[in-house]
């Protein structure tokens, strides 16, 4: 019997931080411990050893029996990329709200003012959204937005092109035009660890073409962005993500969010979600 929630892979720690000590944390409300065993990450829940693996800088685990492998990010193995562990931001919100916010560009001018967006450049043009059945992922492509400072490496305002991908219910991968390397995409991910239905830890991770910006600056840039997002995420009502229409009003700019909610419902992924009838 498969369980669409417990059988998922979840990020629970940074591999690079494990030598500093065990990490006691929560996954889907259950206490777990992440530790090093003979140099390899090990995750236990009440003494039971869980399936785990180290990938994309993080330890991934599952409380159940995953029916599919961890999603692939081919760019992670591409030579020349700099892999950046950003750390974690704890947010008092549904893990699904955190992912949905990451998929949203219309908030840039108001929440990330003068960094990822600025008035009067508020318009969100048409973009393409699809649930790709062959991989069972949500994809948004041809997303364009004017940004005053798109990345730490950007000198001035540019129109940035984005692609968004949701390969797992609590993961989003963002592909973004890479100013120093035209033709390539910078990869910025959001790995979300659901502690409970209304509390999560957000682990951003990056695979960039940027050999010059100091690590501290890269991390500070991402932390600034996520702390701005947190002030939104902790003040949405209801805190659970509504999967059925009615409680909230989407527009054309929200098509990625609409597809994400539909995809979650189809997969039966309801942890951190609410159905209107409930």
């Amino acid at each position, binding site marked *: 019997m498969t369980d669409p929630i417990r059988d998922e892979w979840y990020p629970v720690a940074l591999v690079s931080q494990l030598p500093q000590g065990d990490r006691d944390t929560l996954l889907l409300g259950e206490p777990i411990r992440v530790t090093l065993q003979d140099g390899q990450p090990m995750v236990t829940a009440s003494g039971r050893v869980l399936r785990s693996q180290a990938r994309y800088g993080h330890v991934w685990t599952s409380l159940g029996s995953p029916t599919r492998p961890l999603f692939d990010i081919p760019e992670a193995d591409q030579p020349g990329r700099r892999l950046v562990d950003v750390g974690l931001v704890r947010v008092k919100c549904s893990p699904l709200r955190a992912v949905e916010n990451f998929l949203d560009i219309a908030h840039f*001018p108001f929440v990330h003012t003068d960094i990822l967006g600025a008035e009067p450049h*508020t*318009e*969100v043009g048409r973009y393409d959204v699809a649930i790709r059945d062959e991989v069972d992922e949500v994809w948004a492509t041809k997303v364009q937005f004017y940004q005053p400072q798109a990345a730490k490496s950007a000198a001035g305002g540019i129109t940035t092109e984005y692609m968004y991908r949701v390969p797992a219910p609590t993961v989003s991968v963002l592909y973004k035009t890479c100013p120093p390397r035209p033709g390539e995409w910078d990869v910025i991910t959001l790995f979300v660890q659901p502690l409970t239905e209304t509390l999560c830890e957000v682990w951003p991770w990056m695979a960039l073409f940027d050999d010059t910006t100091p690590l501290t600056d890269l991390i500070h840039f991402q932390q600034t962005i996520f702390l701005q997002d947190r002030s*939104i995420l902790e*003040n*949405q*009502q209801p805190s659970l993500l509504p999967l059925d229409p009615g409680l909230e009003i989407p527009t054309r700019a929200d098509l990625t969010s609409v597809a994400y909610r539909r995809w979650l419902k189809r997969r039966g992924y309801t942890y951190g979600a609410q159905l209107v009838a409930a």
Partner: protein
Amino acid sequence: MTDAWTPVALARDLPRLGVVPLCVDGIDIALWRSASGRVAAWADRCPHRGMRLSHGFVRGEALSCIYHGWSYGSEGQCLRIPAHPDLTPPEAIRVPVFQAIESGGVVWVAPKTTDAMPPAVGGTALRSLTVDAVVDWAASGFTLSSAVARGELSGVAMTILVQPLPNGRFALHALADSAAPAALIEASRGLEALRRQAEVALA
């Protein structure tokens, strides 16, 4: 019934372009004042994504949500969706609006529609403070009628408006029948003593 109205702030503490969160009768409210000085009390939730409007910003006569900048006019109707600047927002997108009025130097809110007016009060706006206990008005020589307590503090005649807050707390909005600075300082100390008494009695 004047009970329909809850005193929520001294009028001078809500500046133009200001917006603050409130909870009245269990309803979350965004209280704000427009550039022209109009006071409004709305449901504290943007219908787009459920963000609290009390985190928003006021421009002119409209309140905007801080999340995506959707702005709403005086009747709560959506005026503008910045992601789609050429779109006229559908009528159906609106924020529930409650009655709010400024009277006697106090802002009053009525979550349920009423034809009544708030009680007539007046005086010099002294200050608002919160109390983590129920004040025994009679023991302090005050008479309490619905939300209005009248009595004396340090020899100054006072009108104190009582606003119930969540979790058994109260906000007191104090008006003094004097404008003399020395008298107001004494009355302010008297108000703090009243609070201390109430909270110590509870402990």
